[in-house]
């Protein structure tokens, strides 16, 4: 009787062990699904000294819907997130653009401009891809970038960047010992 109990007990332990081993390998295999990339280095090819003061930022999200090949019903639906930054390129400031009279500093700032329109790969959410859109995607992404920039300008990013920039530069110059700041 005792031998039979021991036999079934051993069997149960063995089954549990096999189960754990199976689950471990099964889970490891599951993780490998989907396309993967090889480990390649990130190479710095240029280092630039810049002087950009971003003073306004626009964040937008839009749905892009495209259709082609009506017989097959090819359809693409993407949700894209875009970031637009605007401000001043202070590299354009020339020595004559800043003048001081007693305690008052006069600054001629360059024009505000769009500094970046950023849509990284992780900002694209491919919701539906019926058919293959790999050949068109580059143009679709370029179009979206232009749209985000247009939206940001329409929503007054440049005006906000100018207003905010003058306020920030005034605050900074006052903290540096000046009594007044004039923008020309």
């Amino acid at each position, binding site marked *: 009787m005792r031998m039979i109990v021991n036999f079934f007990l051993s069997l149960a332990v063995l089954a549990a062990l096999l189960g754990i081993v199976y689950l471990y390998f099964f889970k490891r295999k599951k993780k490998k699904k989907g396309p993967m*990339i090889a480990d390649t280095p990130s190479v710095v*090819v240029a280092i630039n000294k*810049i002087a950009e003061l971003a003073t306004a930022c626009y964040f*937008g999200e839009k749905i892009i819907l495209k259709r082609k090949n009506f017989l097959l019903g090819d359809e693409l639906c993407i949700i894209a997130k875009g970031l637009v930054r605007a401000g001043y390129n202070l590299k354009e400031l020339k020595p004559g653009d800043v003048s001081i009279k007693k305690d008052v500093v006069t600054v001629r700032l360059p024009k505000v401009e769009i500094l970046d329109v950023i849509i990284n790969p992780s900002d694209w959410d491919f919701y539906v891809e019926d058919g293959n859109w*790999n050949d068109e995607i580059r143009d679709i992404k370029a179009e979206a970038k232009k749209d985000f920039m247009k939206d940001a300008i329409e929503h007054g990013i440049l005006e906000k960047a100018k207003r905010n920039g003058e306020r920030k530069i005034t605050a900074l110059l006052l903290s540096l010992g000046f009594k007044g700041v004039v923008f020309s």
Partner: protein
Amino acid sequence: MCFRKKNSRQLLLTRERLRELTSVSDLSTTEYTVEKIVKAVDTASAFKRYLAGERKVLYSCKIYIKAGIDMKKYDPDKTEIDLSTMSISITLPKAGIISFDMPAEEQDMEYTKVGLMRRRFSATESNELLVQGEKSVYEAIHEMGILEDAERNTRDFFSAALYQLGYHIVNIKFEAI
């Protein structure tokens, strides 16, 4: 080929477009241009690869990373001015990453090879590969030394500006944290 997320069509139709315009105060002083080769690994079994052919794609990408300081964190109370000697000492916020841009127009497919019995890479799959490339560069940023360069360039920028504003002795420090 269809790549559709289940049960989320309803959500898409009711989703509102989001827009937000905010004030920032980021001074970027350094820009790194990084090149990355995104090489897809064929995860199919050796048997499948032998029978149906391989599935390969190679992208070369450029990434622009800007670093500098967030002037919103600048504390004017930490600025010390001595007008008798025309000296100034300012403490600036620690340098950080301001922007990370991996533009689509600089993601070039350099090579692709797909076996006759295998399906082409879809736009969704290509983007998944590029997301992994983006993540890999982002994780490597701190090893590139961009923040050290940003502090050096920020120091140069403020020194030049303060000398131009009439100060003779300029001391620039960065916050410890």
